[in-house]
């Protein structure tokens, strides 16, 4: 039983007798172990090829996002700079009326913080939970630096009546630990009252839930629109002869390759009140010169521009699935007496579902996190949650709030991404 070498790594030799053979390599080692060693070597080699990139992505992408998200529940602006009063809060249960020790601790902390010039940070932290309190801290800080005498309660109340506000003490209590859930509460329009219970914020300050709702609703609408517009195109491309469909495919790929800002700009040009579309409508006499349509800097603008931008992401997966559908099924259905509508609905359409699912999920995932287009053409009613994150990052500088909103958005996107991976598989992602 002289076996030819099947594999350069392991020349296989079996015992000649044919009795329960224990396979060994040419040099007498058990084959199973040699095989395992060679496999683990191959695994290591494959992994070494991926390792540099994986390390790069982990260090510059995954960990930084993790660190950013940490800010959503960790903010030591108050607790680190006001240690004594934080300690008092830690010792007493919620709702305790501040006693002399508390007032003394507060006065000492305010003095120390004002001297260390960190009072602004403290005020900013409290201001996140209770608007208008930053100036209370900074102005009190200026006064206590000149000296403050006991009794501290009366002295502080003389500086500003607001120090007696139970709401303020409740907010300070919740800020006295660095780890807080307040930013998450705020991002779903909730807050804590004086007793530490979770309540809705006043009606006029409820913005985030509306914004989340609008983001998901607009993304769903845009996904539906890309489906309605993309399906006929993908079907046409898939049924035309290759030469013609390649030519028409360029009309789909050109927008896909064109800069996002260029496409957004062209919609601004087309849709504005003195723009091309309004001009044509006026020229055709459909609308009067005085009643030009407001189609941009509102939700309509966001919807039109984003549908246009995301349409190729729906067409491409639909097309690649439709290409593989055998046309004889529909012909068979017709020959068995189905009307063209029935044949489409019961035979053709179900076969396109994998492509439809892939396209719809991709469009929805991308739409939920869109920032540039809504920022440029959305006006105030077309802003999405990403724009609110950007606003907290660059304008209000409430980074913890931005991080909390980002965490919620990211959570939603990752759930969708996980679903996409399960249902479609990330390795089936195709680009053109």
């Amino acid at each position, binding site marked *: 039983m002289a076996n030819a070498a099947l594999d350069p790594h392991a020349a296989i030799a079996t015992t000649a007798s044919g009795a329960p053979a224990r396979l060994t390599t040419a040099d007498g080692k058990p084959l199973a172990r040699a095989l395992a060693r060679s496999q683990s070597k191959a*695994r290591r080699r494959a992994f070494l*090829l991926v390792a540099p990139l994986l390390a790069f992505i982990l260090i*510059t992408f995954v960990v930084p996002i993790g660190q950013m998200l940490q800010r959503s529940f960790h903010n030591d602006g108050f607790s680190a700079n006001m240690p004594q009063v934080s300690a008092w809060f830690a010792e007493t249960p919620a709702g305790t009326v501040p006693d002399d020790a508390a007032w003394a601790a507060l006065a000492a902390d305010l003095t120390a913080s004002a001297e260390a010039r960190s009072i602004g940070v403290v005020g900013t932290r409290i201001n996140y939970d209770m608007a208008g309190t930053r100036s209370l801290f900074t102005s009190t800080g200026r006064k206590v630096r000149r000296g403050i005498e006991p009794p501290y309660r009366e002295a502080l109340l003389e500086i500003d009546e607001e120090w007696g506000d139970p709401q303020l003490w409740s907010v300070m209590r919740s800020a006295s630990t660095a780890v807080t859930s307040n930013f998450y509460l705020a991002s779903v329009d909730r807050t804590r009252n004086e007793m530490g219970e979770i309540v809705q914020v006043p009606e006029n300050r409820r913005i985030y839930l509306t914004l989340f709702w609008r983001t998901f609703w607009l993304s769903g609408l845009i996904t539906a629109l890309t489906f309605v517009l993309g399906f006929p195109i993908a079907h046409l491309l898939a049924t035309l002869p290759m030469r013609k469909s390649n030519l028409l495919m360029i009309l789909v790929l050109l927008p896909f*390759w064109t800069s996002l800002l260029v496409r957004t700009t062209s919609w601004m040009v087309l849709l504005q009140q003195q723009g*091309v579309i309004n001009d044509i409508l006026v020229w055709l006499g459909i609308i009067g010169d005085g009643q030009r349509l407001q189609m941009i800097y509102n939700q309509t603008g966001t919807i039109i521009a984003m549908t246009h931008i995301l349409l190729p992401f729906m067409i491409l997966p639909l097309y690649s699935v439709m290409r593989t559908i055998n046309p004889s099924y529909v012909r068979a259905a017709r020959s068995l007496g189905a009307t063209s509508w029935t044949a489409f609905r019961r035979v053709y359409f179900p076969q396109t579902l994998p492509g439809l699912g892939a396209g719809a999920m991709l469009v929805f995932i991308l739409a939920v996190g869109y920032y540039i287009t809504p920022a440029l053409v959305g006006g105030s009613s077309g802003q999405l949650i990403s724009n609110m994150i950007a606003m907290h990052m660059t304008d209000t500088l409430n980074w913890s709030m931005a991080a909390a909103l*980002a965490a919620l958005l990211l959570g939603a996107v990752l759930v969708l991404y996980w679903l996409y991976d399960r249902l479609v598989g990330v390795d089936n992602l195709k680009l053109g």
Partner: protein
Amino acid sequence: MAVPTYASPLERIWHYAYIAICAAIFFFLIAPIVVIIPLSFNAEPYFTFTDKMLSFDPEGYSMRWYDSLLTFGMTAPDGPRDLSWWGDAWANAKWVQAAKNSIIIGIFSTILATVLGTLAALGLSRPEMPFRRAIMAILISPMIVPLIITATGMFFFYSNPCELLTLFGLDPQCGRLAGTYLGVIFAHVTLGIPFVIITVTATLVGFDQSLNRAAASLGASPRRTFFKVTMPLILPGVISGALFAFVTSFDEVVAVLFIAGPDQQTIPRQMWNGIREQISPAILAVATLLVVFSIALLTTVELLRRRSERIRGVTPH
């Protein structure tokens, strides 16, 4: 796509209606891109066709907006157009600076992303690769995670990259990456990686692994096998991946907004400024140039794709 002979009159009508609907959708796709091209030659500072333009009067058209791309930011834009004028434009014009930055950042981030991405794709397409699916999902995620979240995370990281080491209990201080070319390049590598991975792994799906074994059995070293056998076959996929990475970098604005300093203003960043502050038809001139650029890129990618299918013996389906 012809109407079958057994079609009823109603179906024939529907067939032509369907063609008309498709034509309308193609129009929706392409018209916004095409319409800005003539508008960028507008002689007036309007965003619509003037009467003179519609009657094809040469006076209605001008190159003034293209000219303004050169003169904007120059120290002496009105001087005679001699060598020193062009030198001034090369050194000072805002859009020229932006173009230079875009190209520098684009090229370097493309090289890095392509090398790292191709290596990783080679590893990922080996059957022995452990945790293949999870690693693939991580490497693709920069394309999926909302850009604003990525940019926010990068903003903190690139401001003080050594802060990462505090996780290990160290307290080091090192320079900033934010506001440097290196920082922007790294950010664009991260964003370009998924495209390289996707295109190169797609090419490797059709790659016959026995060719490598054949080369090895004929005595070629692994390095020689890679450069003489693997590389020529996957090259079209690698190049189109590289083009995707370049376009991603060339078109990226959010990360630039958060990380770049005043010295790293790219074309999209400059457009962003132009659109937000005072939009003028100069933006349309830039947009037209970018459209021409993307047509050139698209043509290249299409030619590469066909070549790749031909040499791999995959007939176009």
